[in-house]
């Protein structure tokens, strides 16, 4: 069971601001989904290996060479928050 405090904590971890009323709504909806997920406990899986993806490929590497990339002004074109060729953000703390 997720508590109100859990919702606040995961809201912080996920960087999503949640107000008091939303906390209660999320708690109820998330708990009903988690209860459904609980059915997986019926299965014995101690000896089963996890499948992260089904493509039978591992360690896909490329040569470590510099290739053409997007020009700086193109990359910055999607924001107004820029300065001296960089993205501008508020101070961290």
């Amino acid at each position: 069971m997720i508590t109100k405090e859990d919702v606040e904590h995961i809201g912080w971890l996920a960087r999503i601001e949640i107000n008091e009323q939303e906390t209660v709504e999320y708690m109820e909806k998330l708990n009903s989904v988690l209860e459904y997920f609980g059915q997986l406990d019926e299965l014995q899986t101690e000896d089963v290996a996890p499948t992260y993806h089904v493509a039978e490929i591992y360690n896909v590497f490329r040569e470590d060479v510099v290739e053409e990339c997007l020009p700086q002004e193109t990359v910055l074109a999607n924001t107004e928050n820029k300065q001296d060729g960089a993205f501008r953000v508020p101070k961290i703390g």
Partner: protein
Amino acid sequence: MAKWMSVAQVKEKIEESSAEEVTARYLEVIGKSKINGYLTVSDKALEQAKKIDKEGHSGPLAGVPIAIKDNISVVGLPNSCGSKILEGYVPPFNAHVIEKLLAAGAVVLGKTNMDEFAMGSSTETSHFGPTSNPWDLERVPGGSSGGSAAVVAAGEAPFALGSDTGGSVRCPAAFCGVVGLKPTYGAVSRYGVVAYANSLEQVGPLANNVEDIAVLMDVIAGYDRRDSTSINNKTECQKSLVDDVKGLKIGVPKEFFGEGIHPDVEKAVWDAIHKYESLGATWKEVSMPNIKYSLASYYIIAMCEASSNLARFDGTRYGFRENAENWHAMVSKTRADGFGTEVKRRILLGTYALSAGYHDKYYLKALKVRTLVKQDFDKALSAVDLLMAPTMPNPAFKIGEKIEDPLTLYLSDVNTCPINLAGVPSISVPCGFTDGLPIGLQIMGKPFDEPTVLRAAYTFEQNTDHHTKRPPEVA
């Protein structure tokens, strides 16, 4: 010009008149649309078509218009993913599939509506309002590629691209009475497609007939080194279009005919299976005991991957930004206002399921169950060539009917999401109607055996007329 045309008919029309005229005709139809299928209509489409008329083009899709789901990057067109958080964002690069389409001469008509970040089965979670089902404007088109399926069904594009993470191509194909294919995992590059759950999703074609699906697959499939899960195993789809299923072995997994299935859906699917029998195929029931755990496994994995993938939307480099006194507050407020409720729910659940103390209980458990589901598919498909079942247990529901309770909506993916866990190819083809609403038959095959899946779908189409029916409300 006919409203609904196959790609071959579009090409004939271009020969007779011009690419410009054909594109102009589609833009005219889109202009009168009643379904809210497009989020952006390209202002460059006519120009693109004119250029093809003037300069000529030898590609297989020279001048043929196409609609693109709004999570597939096209240079110069907004890419909203149905979300407020990507407000104003215009991709500076093309997705691999778009590069392939443009090289083949296709003309991009516009970008289609979708559930926000492909999270939904009804296109109702879009920030830009729902798309209507062309068969009944009060009903959902399915989702998340609802816009792509609806515009194809409504004659607003000859074919379209969608993406399928847990059924997002096949569900709307079934609800809108069109054909939709989820290719084998790794068959089509995901480069330039906004990620929701990487280990599950594939780009897939939607069209009014199986042949057009094969035409599109032959253009978009193939190896791309920019997608590290791309697999170099290209099959030729058009060559597989033969009207012959003699000797084909079909498995019917009883777990896909579970509680709550609409009786008309069950009957239409069995009628289809008996049709195959009359055409020389054989069928037998097979059992896939872990299918019932697919939905929980699928949603845990998808939400966990989403919580990580969607971390990039922080208001820094593109899209919507809320102002705040410091970095953390800016990001938290941007994400609170920029994401819709369902997206936030999935990010929060994914974050929870990956957090200290819960990782093994949810995420690791779901990955182990995924192994069991994959084993069910491997076993079933070792004894038969194909599996057949309903795509959706029920026809399209009313707009607003299921949106309040997330779990109710999740349950509608029960027959589509197991396929993404296993990574196998699966197509939905029209196989009947109930009260004027289309029903989809789902045909699943072995990994990279799109040719057999398409051959079966093509043969069914050649021997039935369900795919020729058109929605009267938009005719």
